[in-house]
């Protein structure tokens, strides 16, 4: 049943991906910015310009270029990057683990912090604690993630230099990793010093990404918890003598979680988009940073490959979200 459901969702995603591919392909070719114009040096003649257009296949019609690209793309080959002259698929797969680890850590921080704030706010309802939680959530929401990033750089990178400002790991040290998931691999191989170094590099960008999402989770979950705490089962638990914290965590939290999970899933997709700026600010070598370079250099094959990758990520996150609903709400498991 579950496998069929997953398969169905994946099949539904195919037209979406085709639509995205066509749209992106046409858009990146009609917006101003010729990649060949970016690289012609002083003294190049119109013949040189034509030669470079032909070299990169840009002299063909857009439908002809798309047909060629689509033929390769169905086999997972997104062509060759104009800037680096390397396989787009290889470039993206090489950077994707860094972004996935960053997004995963940011989501973890957001969920832990958001839930903690919501529980604290519910526990301290009507008192100064709730006001403080609401104020923090409001502030965290009002400040965009890239500003948090810059504030962290000044705070914990310069004034109180506790954490590294740029990169994914200390460039003077060699971190041996056979996969791109160097944090997960370091932890799995019990290389804690390496894991600590990688985590130190990720902490500021991940927290900057996480704070607005944590604030959103805190607000929605707190509202849901307040509603659940007024339900009969919660009142009964209180009458039975359970502490308010126990009732919140053990009784109300699960029932209050569904709208929060829904919101988190949607927001995580935005969080993936947020990596573009955050990775740039922290010089973090993920696909967000790669995307900015691709756009600056008008590297059309790389832009296309990256947008398809982002689209696939969004689809997979939404699929995971649907499945998590079923896990949380038994009624949905029966369809």
């Amino acid at each position, binding site marked *: 049943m579950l496998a069929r459901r997953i398969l169905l969702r994946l099949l539904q995603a195919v037209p979406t991906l085709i639509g995205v591919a066509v749209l992106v392909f046409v858009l990146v070719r009609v917006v*101003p*910015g*010729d*990649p060949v*114009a*970016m*690289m*012609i*040096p*002083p*003294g*190049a*003649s*119109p013949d*040189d*310009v034509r*030669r*470079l257009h032909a070299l990169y296949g840009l002299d063909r019609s857009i439908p002809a270029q798309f047909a060629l690209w689509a033929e390769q793309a169905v086999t997972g080959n997104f062509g060759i990057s*104009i*800037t*680096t*002259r*390397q396989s787009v698929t290889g470039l993206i797969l*090489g*950077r994707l683990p860094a972004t996935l680890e960053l997004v995963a850590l940011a989501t973890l921080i957001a969920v832990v912090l958001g839930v903690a704030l919501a529980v604290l706010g519910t526990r301290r309802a009507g008192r100064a604690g709730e006001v403080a939680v609401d104020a923090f959530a409001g502030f965290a929401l009002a400040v965009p993630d890239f500003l948090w990033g810059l504030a962290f*750089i*000044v705070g914990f*990178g*310069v004034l109180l*230099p*506790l*954490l590294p*400002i*740029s990169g*994914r790991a200390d*460039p*003077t040290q*060699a971190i041996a990793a056979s996969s791109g998931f160097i944090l997960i691999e370091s*932890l799995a191989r*019990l290389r*804690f*010093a390496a*894991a*600590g*170094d990688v*985590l*130190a590099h990720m*902490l500021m960008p991940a927290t900057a990404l996480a704070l607005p999402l944590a604030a959103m989770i805190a607000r929605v979950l707190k509202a849901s918890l307040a509603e659940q705490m007024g339900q009969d089962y919660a009142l009964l638990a209180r009458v039975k003598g359970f502490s308010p914290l126990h009732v919140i965590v053990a009784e109300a939290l699960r029932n209050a979680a569904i709208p929060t999970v829904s919101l988190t899933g949607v927001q995580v997709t935005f969080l993936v988009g947020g990596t573009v700026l955050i990775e*740039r*600010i922290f*010089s*973090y*070598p*993920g696909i967000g*940073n*790669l995307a900015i*370079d691709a756009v*600056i*250099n*008008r590297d059309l094959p790389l832009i296309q490959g990256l947008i398809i990758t982002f689209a696939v990520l969004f689809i997979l996150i939404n699929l995971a979200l649907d499945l998590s609903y079923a896990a949380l709400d038994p009624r949905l498991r029966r369809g």
Partner: protein
Amino acid sequence: MGLTRRELTRREVTRRGLVAGGVALGMGSMLVPARRAGADAGSVSIAYNVGLPSWDPTVGPSAVNPTIQAIYQSVFDQYVGQNPDLSFTPGLLEKWGWNAAGTEVWMDVRKAVVWHDGTPLTPEDVRWSLTRAGDPKSGNPIQFIWGNLSGFKIDGQRVTAQAKQFDPVLFKWMAFLTGYVLPRAYYEKVGPEGFEKKPVGTGPYMVDAYERNAFLRLKANPHYWGGKPAIDTVVFKFVTDASARVAEIESGASDVTLEIPYEEFDRLKKKPGLKGVTTPISDIGMIFITNVAPMLDENVRQAMVHAVDKKLLVDKLLRGYGVPIDTLEAPQYEAFDPSIRTPHDPKLAVEYLKKSGFSKSKPVKFTIQTTRGFKPKDYEMIQAIVGMWRNVGIHADIEVYEIAKHFELRMAHKLAPAAFYNWGNAIGDPTTSTGFAMFGPSPHSAWKTKDVDALIGPLWGERDEAKRIAGWKAVDRYVAEHALVLPLLQYVQPIVHKDTVKVVPSISGSLQPARFTRA
């Protein structure tokens, strides 16, 4: 179902304890203050302003990116070297020249040079590199220069080649974009992808580790023909965000950084332990004038030029970090002529406009295009210039575009009547400044008229060097007298470094770690 405490075996308790302890240690190491750069006396970290897209310095867009050349020049050697003052010096060629007829070039390849993989550099490497660069299929953007050579012959250390035409700048290009010697045997063995993974050059540094968009770690080449560099390990951190570069140097995480806002440069250089150095570089800010209405009216162009107070722009917007210029030749270029002047004279500008019936109440109108944030204060500078123009009777609307659009429009000769741009010329020759910016057939020129082309045309193949330079000065004078372009300023490169490192800036803008020493 999880294990209960009773169900845990001693072994599991020990294992979990070890893991927990390890995690605690790892977390603890996170909170130890971030490692200071240069803690190791033989290491220098540079917070660098661009990344490195590709390791092949002869193909693709990165091959013509001037800022990336510093990295290439650390790992590879050029045919001809260049000193910080733009003068030329032997590189992998010890001597070079043309035959008397100007139909053949000869190049003496340096002896006793080894590639980073230990194999010797041979004249065949030079022949292969030049042949490959001249092959239209190679993707070398400068192919039109290298394609001039063919019929290579090797005799001992000497390589000769036939030239289709005499080119007075050919050997200068050998110290410029794509002028690098690559190892034939190694490249053919590993292929382009293998070369990207493990590049091999003859340069002062060898690649130790490289992570795209993150960092590059280099180790000094102990067998370098020019002597082992003073700094053993150099780390280029690719920090493309200027505020992050400021934070890198201020926090001590990097030893050197460059291309930061001038306000930050002035602040940082006063901090204990940091020093600042500025150098005028071979990069100028200018306004292209396109030969369309209303620019076909010389009075309008003259008014545009004379209304702009370049010194004020430099002093107020760039905090004095810039050199006002009147031609496309910066003072360090070969054809620079200080006698060519286009002084700020708003009254004269008003008179010029009056001749064509324009005034403050009846201004001439056109669009000026500019980038925003591509160069220091570019948009602000154009705003100020538009204000200066308004005071004499010119009403210009500002259109902001991306640099990619500028290139596309310029190539198609569709720029607005006025368009701001910056022009680099690291070899300082007039062909690569005035020549390509003003010669009509060039895809880079905006003013395309036969009178200018007639002046420039004969200079491309001029064999008398003194006559050639004098010819270019005459072109610059003609261009200035007829206000065919509006040169603004020569940019200044700000570099901040720790006082423990001695940095040698270069007019080309190429910050080469091989020139670093310990202070």
